[in-house]
């Protein structure tokens, strides 16, 4: 029973969580696992509502814990289902053993994460530590920066995950609180359009699935070279995901009229001398600062990371090469490296881009705001470094106020 609104695109003012739920609903998942956790709870409530209203024909499983949520969708995916779940921080790390399984089993699970601080210090607040703590899980990891992008990224995530040359699970990250509870204008595409965008997936060679009675299995014991072969294939698939994501973003643009630049959105970087690098909601604020600084004559650009795993090495190297100084904004920390995690990964590009002065700005943890004033300060510091002055490599900007 398709409600009238779904045969046409609708403009609504909805939160990031709601946008995630709409994105998932439109892609018609068949098995959905639900468990509440701040700041994501609205996602599972919306999905339940869609189901009750007949707009989502899925098996809804109200699980007893996030670990079960991930296992349930993984197994259902292995049996051939399109699936969906959502979590955050503590729930994400509770799923950790399952996450590794999902990626290793090469099943196209899609999950959204409303980023929040991880355990260690009790924190019910925004931060990207949970995204960072699962970098090595083998999943594809995307980051959205506004509510429209959340919805669009979920649709793109299915297209990417189920591509027969990828076949990997995808997590879509968005900042808890600053995006999960932010209500803004979102265009909700029509069902027809989403169905059409995902329909090419049906023309692919079918993926291996578990059929009762057919002597085949998942979870084989990898022995010696057998293990290495499977690991290598996984590794190679992640690399392929980069190019695929570029294609999908372009196709999305043609189909829906919105595209985001692929792995990396390079804003006013062509003639920029200094550049800020960031991921998530802070990029919106940073973009505004870039525009204002440009009005003052500062040659500054912004690199917005949209894909975090696989790490968009080639695109970043292309964009950052030749710049005079770089500032990297991190809403998390890299334990053991005395800097922000995204900074550390950008720093690893030095062989490709040459020794460029780079600064790590740690801020925005535990719901602390990243204000335009803080970003202006970062621009000042990066400018100073670009002029050849000495600089401090790591600054905890939130604490300097």
């Amino acid at each position, binding site marked *: 029973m398709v409600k009238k609104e779904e045969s046409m695109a609708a403009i609504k003012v909805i939160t990031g969580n709601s946008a995630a739920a709409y994105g998932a609903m439109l892609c018609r998942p068949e*098995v959905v696992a639900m468990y509440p956790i701040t700041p994501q709870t609205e996602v599972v409530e919306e999905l339940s509502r869609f189901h009750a209203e007949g707009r989502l024909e899925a098996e809804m499983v109200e699980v*007893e814990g996030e670990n079960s949520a991930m296992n349930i969708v993984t*197994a259902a995916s292995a049996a051939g289902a399109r699936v969906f779940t959502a979590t955050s921080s503590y729930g994400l790390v509770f799923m950790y053993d399952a996450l590794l399984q999902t990626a290793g089993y090469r099943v196209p699970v899609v999950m959204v994460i409303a980023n929040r601080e991880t355990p260690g210090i009790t924190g019910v607040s925004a931060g990207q530590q949970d995204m960072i703590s699962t970098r090595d899980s083998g999943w594809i990891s995307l980051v959205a920066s506004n509510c429209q992008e959340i919805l669009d990224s979920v649709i793109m995530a299915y297209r990417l995950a189920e591509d027969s040359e990828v076949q990997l699970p995808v997590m879509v990250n968005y900042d808890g609180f600053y995006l999960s509870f932010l209500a803004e204008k979102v265009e909700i595409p029509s069902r027809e359009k989403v169905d059409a965008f995902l329909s090419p997936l049906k023309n692919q060679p079918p993926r291996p699935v578990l059929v*009762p009675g057919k*002597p085949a299995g*998942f*979870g084989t*014991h*990898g022995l010696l070279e057998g293990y290495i072969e499977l690991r290598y294939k996984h590794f190679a698939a992640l690399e392929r995901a980069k190019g695929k994501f570029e294609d999908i973003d372009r196709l999305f643009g043609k189909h829906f009229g919105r595209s985001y630049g692929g792995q990396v959105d390079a804003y006013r970087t062509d003639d920029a001398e200094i550049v800020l690098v960031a991921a998530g909601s802070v990029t919106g604020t940073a973009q505004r600062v870039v525009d204002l600084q440009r009005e003052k004559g500062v040659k500054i650009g912004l690199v917005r990371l949209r894909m975090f795993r696989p790490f968009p090495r080639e695109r970043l190297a292309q964009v950052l090469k030749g710049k005079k100084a770089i500032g990297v904004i991190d809403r998390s920390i890299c334990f053991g490296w005395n800097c922000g995690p995204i900074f550390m990964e950008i720093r690893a590009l030095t062989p490709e881009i040459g020794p460029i002065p780079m600064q790590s700005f740690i801020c925005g943890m535990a719901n602390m705001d990243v204000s335009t004033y803080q970003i202006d300060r970062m621009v000042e510091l990066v400018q100073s470094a670009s002029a050849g002055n000495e600089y401090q490599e790591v600054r905890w900007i939130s604490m300097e106020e």
Partner: protein
Amino acid sequence: MATKKGKLSKVFDYFSDQDPFAPGVSCCAGCPLELALRFMGKVLGRKDMVITGTPGCANPVLTGQNVGAWHTLTSYGTLMTSAASNATGLSRYYRKIGQDATVVCFNGDGCAADIGFQNLSGAAERNEKFIYICYDNEGYMNTGVQRSSTTPAGARTATTPVGPMRRGKPTRRKNLALLMAMHWIPYAATATLSHLEDFAEKLVKAKQKKEEGLSFIHIFCPCPTGWGVPSDIAIELCRTAVRTNYFPLWEAENGIVRITHEVKKPRPVSEYLNLVKKFSHMTPEEQQVVQEGIDFDYAFLTHLAKFRR
């Protein structure tokens, strides 16, 4: 085992399929687990089965190696933490698309009672539609005989040794089968390898009942290697366990208990304990404590068995 007149015994009547397992699997000599696997395979049949297995004694048998396997079943490997949740995902999806499926979890007690209990309880509460079989060898045998929550009080294991400071496992075992029955699932039962007809009936019933919700079977499955028992008396041990009420055979439908094998004159539990090396350190007083525990458990069970709506 043909009778004198050449007719097949009743047990064979339960087989719906041939043994799906190849000969020469890696179970220890005399391991009842191997019998349980082959038996279950023959009774339930391959046609619509998906079997999930976790790390444990059954793992080398159930899980493939690279691209080969010791069986022709459809199989899915899970972690110890997640057998029931994976089975939920499978059974829900198959049901949604109208695919005939009997999803069977086949796990040890370490998984079912300890590390995998949370999601088992969750699946039972939601009344998911699959069969969960726990083979109880009273410990983590695959990793070298460490205690689990179904290890009985007083047992010697690698993590509950006997010495001047301690006398084996200090606490009583969890009654896992009763716990599962108290989730009011359509079917919960105990079974063992010395009473194959009883076991077969329960497997068939479990398959029927899983159309309504979760079916749980708890198999008493001694580990000759780990318990210090000669490998040729494993079945005898099962029979003694039943005869002494150490392991009563019962079933429960939605929590209503029925004893399926009445033991009219239970033998003293010392007959059972004396067969097993892990209890060999016990004094007569300690054996008496075990007897009191067994008597209590059985009285509790029979009391429950009297309850009718």
